[in-house]
C-alpha cells in the first residue's frame, strides 16, 4: 500500500475556487442561489423541516377528526373559512376537506419532507465530503435541484385558493377520482396544481440523482476504490440510480393524468361513466396504478436506503467497530434496489389486476425480506463486542433499526396476498408505512442530523436536548402508530372521515383517541428538535474537526468547511470502518491517515513501523 501523497494540480485549483467564492460572490450567491453543496444541503434541511411541520399539522387535523368525529377543531377551527373547509359556523371540518387533508399530508411528507431530507439533504452534504472532493460534479444543476422544491411546494399549497380546494384523491391520486373533477377544460384545480408540483419535484430529484451518480463515479479522492466508500455513499449512489430509472416513469404517468384533467383526454377513463363531464372513454384506470407504483415502490426505497447507509455509519462509529459484513451490506442495498423494481404489483393485489400477477408479485415481494434481514443481522453483528456509546445520533440509529424490524415484519403480512385481502386499505397498512417511513426514515434522518450537524455548522448540537427529543419522539411515536395495527385488524378502513358510521368499528373509538393523544405529543416533541437546531447554531459548543473520532473523509475537512471543503489534499489508504484495529493505540484509523496493515482472519492489524510514520498533516 502506498503511503506517499503525490501533489496534483487539483488541490490548488480547489483553493482558488474556494477563495473566489468567499470574497467575490455577492451574498445572494453565497446563501441563496449558492452552488456550494453544503449550502444546498442546509437549504434542503430547512425547507424539509418547514414542510415537516406543515405536513404534521395536516396529520393532526386528521387525527382530531378520527378521535372526535363531528367535534369542532379546537382553536384553529374557528378561524377556518366556512366554505368547503368547515361546516358553516361550527369549526367542524367537512368530509371534502378531510380527504384534502389526507392527500396533502401524504404528498407533503413524501415529496417535500422525506425524499428531500434523505436524498436532497444527505445526498448533497455527504457525497462530496465523504468521497473527499470539493463539490458536486455539476454544481449548477445541483442548485437547480433545490430551487425547484420551494416553488413546487408553493404550487401544491396553492390548491387551497382554488374553488374546490386542494387535491383530494389521496397521495396516490388514482383515477378516475383524480381525473373526473367535473370541471371545465383548462380549469386550474387543486388536482392539476398537485400534478404540476409533483412533476417539478420529480424533476428536482432527477437532477440531483444524475449529479450524485456522476460525482460518485468521477470525483472520488485519490486512492478511493468503490469498496472504500462509506455505506452512506453507497446507499445514496444506489438510490440515485433508482431515482434516474424510476422518476421519468412517474413523470409520464403524471403527464397523462394532467392531460386527462386539463384537456379532458381519456388515458385512464373508460367509456360510459355516469358523470356530468364529457369524456371520450376507452381508457384504463388500472394502467395508472401500474405506472404510479412502478415509480412509487422504488420511491419507498429511495426514502429508506440512504438512511440505512447513514445508520450503518453511525452505528459503526459509536460501537467503535467495523461494520459487520461491509460487502454483504452493499450487496443487500443493491439487492433491495433491484427487487424494488419488480414488486410494484403488491400494492395492487385487490385492485382488479389479474390474480396470476398477484402470485408473481407476492413471491418477488417476499424475497425482499431476505436482503432486509441480512441488513438487520449485520447491524446486530456490528453491535456485538463493541464499545457502545449512547450519543443522540446512536440512539436514533438504534431506534431506526428496531422500528425497521417492526415495519419490516408487518410488511410480511401484506406481502402475503391472501392476508392482504383483509388488511389491504386498512389502518394496518397505515401502521406499516409509518413504521417504515417515520420509525425508519425519520429516525434515520434525526440520527444523520445529530451526526453531521457539527460539520454543517461548526457547532455541536446540545446532547441533553437531543436526548429529550429522542425519548419524547420514541415514546409518542410508538403510542401513535402501534395501536394502528389494532385498528387495522379491527377492519378500520383508511381515509374514512367518520368511523362511527360502521357498527363493526364502534369498539375502536378508544384506540383512535389514544392514537390522537400520541400524535399531538409527537407533533409537539418535534419543536424540541427545531429549538435545538436553532439554539445550537448560536450557543452550541464549538465542534472540533472530528468530534466523533470517526474514520470517513468528511472529518478530515476543517471544523466549518467553506466552499471547496478541504484544506489539504486527501489520499485514501483504507476502508472507512477500521475501528479498534490491533496494533494501534487509538481506537480509530481515519481513511486519510497513512499507514499499512494486514488482514488476518477478518481482523485488521496495523503494521507497526508504518503507523509511526508522519501523516500528511
Amino acid at each position, binding site marked *: 500500500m502506498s503511503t506517499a501523497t503525490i501533489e496534483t494540480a487539483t488541490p490548488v485549483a480547489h483553493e482558488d475556487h474556494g477563495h473566489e467564492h468567499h470574497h467575490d460572490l455577492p451574498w445572494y450567491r453565497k446563501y441563496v442561489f449558492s452552488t456550494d453543496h453544503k449550502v444546498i444541503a442546509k437549504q434542503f434541511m430547512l425547507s424539509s423541516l418547514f414542510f415537516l411541520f406543515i405536513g404534521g399539522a395536516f396529520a393532526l387535523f386528521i387525527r382530531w377528526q378520527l378521535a372526535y368525529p363531528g367535534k369542532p377543531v379546537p382553536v384553529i377551527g374557528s378561524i377556518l373559512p366556512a366554505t368547503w373547509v368547515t361546516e358553516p359556523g361550527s369549526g367542524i371540518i367537512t368530509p371534502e376537506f378531510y380527504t384534502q387533508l389526507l392527500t396533502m399530508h401524504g404528498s407533503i411528507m413524501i415529496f417535500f419532507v422525506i425524499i428531500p431530507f434523505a436524498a436532497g439533504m444527505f445526498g448533497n452534504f455527504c457525497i462530496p465530503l465523504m468521497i473527499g472532493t470539493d463539490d458536486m460534479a455539476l454544481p449548477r444543476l445541483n442548485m437547480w435541484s433545490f430551487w425547484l422544491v420551494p416553488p413546487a411546494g408553493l404550487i401544491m399549497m396553492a390548491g387551497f385558493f382554488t374553488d374546490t380546494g386542494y387535491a383530494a384523491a389521496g397521495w396516490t391520486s388514482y383515477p378516475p377520482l383524480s381525473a373526473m373533477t367535473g370541471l371545465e377544460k383548462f380549469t386550474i384545480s387543486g388536482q392539476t396544481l398537485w400534478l404540476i408540483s409533483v412533476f417539478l419535484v420529480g424533476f428536482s430529484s432527477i437532477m440531483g440523482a444524475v449529479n450524485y451518480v456522476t460525482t460518485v463515479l468521477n470525483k472520488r479522492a485519490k486512492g478511493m476504490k468503490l469498496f472504500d466508500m462509506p455505506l452512506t455513499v453507497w446507499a445514496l449512489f444506489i438510490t440515485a440510480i433508482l431515482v434516474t430509472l424510476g422518476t421519468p416513469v412517474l413523470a409520464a404517468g403524471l403527464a397523462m393524468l394532467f392531460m386527462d384533467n386539463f384537456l379532458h383526454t381519456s388515458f385512464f377513463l373508460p367509456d360510459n361513466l355516469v358523470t356530468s363531464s364529457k369524456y371520450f372513454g376507452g381508457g384504463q384506470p388500472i394502467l395508472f396504478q401500474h405506472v404510479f407504483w412502478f415509480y412509487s415502490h422504488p420511491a419507498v426505497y429511495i426514502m429508506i436506503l440512504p438512511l440505512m447507509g447513514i445508520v450503518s455509519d453511525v452505528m459503526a462509529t459509536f460501537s*467503535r467497530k467495523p461494520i459487520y459484513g461491509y460487502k454483504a451490506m452493499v450487496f443487500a442495498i443493491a439487492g433491495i434496489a433491484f427487487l424494488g423494481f419488480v414488486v410494484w404489483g403488491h400494492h395492487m393485489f385487490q385492485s382488479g389486476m389479474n390474480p396470476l400477477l398477484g*402470485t408473481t408479485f407476492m413471491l418477488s415481494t417476499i424475497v425482499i425480506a*431476505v436482503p432486509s434481514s441480512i441488513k438487520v443481522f449485520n447491524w446486530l453483528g456490528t453491535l*456485538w*463486542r463493541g464499545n*457502545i456509546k449512547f450519543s443522540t445520533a446512536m440512539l436514533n440509529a438504534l431506534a431506526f433499526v*428496531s422500528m425497521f424490524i417492526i415495519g419490516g415484519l408487518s410488511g410480511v403480512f401484506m406481502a402475503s*396476498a391472501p392476508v392482504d385481502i383483509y388488511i389491504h386499505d386498512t389502518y394496518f397498512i397505515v401502521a406499516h408505512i409509518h413504521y417504515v417511513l417515520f420509525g425508519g426514515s425519520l429516525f434515520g434522518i434525526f440520527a444523520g442530523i445529530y451526526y453531521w450537524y457539527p460539520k454543517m455548522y461548526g457547532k455541536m448540537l446540545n446532547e441533553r436536548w437531543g436526548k429529550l427529543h429522542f425519548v419524547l419522539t420514541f415514546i409518542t411515536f410508538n403510542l401513535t402508530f402501534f395501536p394502528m395495527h389494532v385498528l387495522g385488524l379491527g377492519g378500520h378502513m383508511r381515509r374514512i372521515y367518520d368511523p362511527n358510521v360502521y357498527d363493526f368499528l364502534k369498539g375502536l373509538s378508544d384506540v383512535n383517541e389514544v392514537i390522537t393523544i400520541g400524535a399531538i405529543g409527537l407533533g409537539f416533541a418535534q419543536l424540541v428538535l427545531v429549538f435545538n437546531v436553532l439554539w445550537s447554531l448560536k450557543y452550541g459548543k464549538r465542534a472540533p474537526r472530528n468530534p466523533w473520532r470517526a474514520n470517513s473523509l468528511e472529518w478530515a475537512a476543517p471544523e466549518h468547511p467553506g466552499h471547496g471543503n478541504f484544506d489539504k489534499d486527501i489520499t485514501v489508504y483504507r476502508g472507512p470502518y477500521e475501528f479498534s484495529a490491533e496494533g494501534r493505540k487509538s481506537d480509530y484509523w481515519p481513511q486519510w491517515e497513512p499507514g499499512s496493515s494486514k488482514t488476518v482472519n*477478518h481482523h485488521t492489524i496495523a503494521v507497526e513501523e508504518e503507523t509511526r510514520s508522519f501523516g500528511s498533516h
Partner: protein
Amino acid sequence: MDRILSYFDMLPWFPENTSTFGGELDSLFAIIYWISVGIFFLTFGIMGFFLVKYRYKRDRRGYNYHGNNIVELTWTVLPTILFAWIGLYSDDIWERTKYSSRLPKADVQVLVMGKTFGWQFLYPGADGEFGRNAYTDRDNCRKLITGLNPFGIDSTDPRSMDDFTTENQFKVPVNANVVMHGSSQDVLHSFFLPHARVKQDVVPGTWMNIWYNIFKTGKFELACAELCGGGHYSMRAEYEVLSKSSYDAWVDKKVAEAIAARSPQPTVAPSADTATVASLTK
C-alpha cells in the same frame, strides 16, 4: 406460558369470521404473526443484550472484526427458506380464493355496482339467469348505463323481466357459493365485507369476480375500502345472510315486485304478464 402469550395476542381484534375461506386467511395471518413475534423477541433480545453487555466502558476496546462469510451465508439462507415457505404456502390459499379459474360453481349470482356513494345490486330473479345487461352483453348494453339504469339493463329482453335490484342492502343465503360480478359506474370503489374477509376493488369499465360462502346467518356490514371522494366514509351497505327458505321467500317477493313495477299497464298485454308470473312460481 399461554397466559404470557395471550398478552401478545392481537388476533382477538379481528371481527368474527363468517366465511369458509376466512378461517384459512385468519390462520395464515396467525402463522405469520407468531413467526413475527418470534423474530421480534429474537432480534430485540439480542439487541438489548448487546446494548447492555457492550455498553461504553473506558477500558474496553471494540473488536476489530469484519464479518464472516459462513455466518452471512447462514443468515441469508435461513430467512430465504422461511420466507419462501411463507410465499408458497400463501400462494396456495391465494389461488383458491382469487384465481378466476378456481371460481366455484355459483349457487347464487349477483351483480354489484358501486357509485358515489352507494352500492347497487342486481339479482337474476327466479329464473336464475340475467337478461341482457352490461355484464351479460357488455358490448351492446354498456351504453345503456345511466344513473337510473346502473346495470344497463335491456328491458326489451324478456329474461330481464324478473331481474330485480336493491340499493345499499342485499341478502344472500347461508352455506351457498355466492358469486358476485362487481363494477363501478364512476370511480374506483372497493367491495369490503369485513366479517367474510372479502375485499375486491371494483373498476369502472370491467367486471371483477367476487365470491364467498358464509356459514353464519345474521346482519352484517359492507364498506367501501377505496377512497372515492368526500362521501367515501358513508358508502356503507348492510347485508343479511338468510336461511335458504327465507332467502327464497325474499327472492319471490322481490321478483313479484319487480314484475309489477316493470309490467306495462294492465290494458297492454296482460296475458304475457301473467304467463311470466306463473312460470316463475313453479
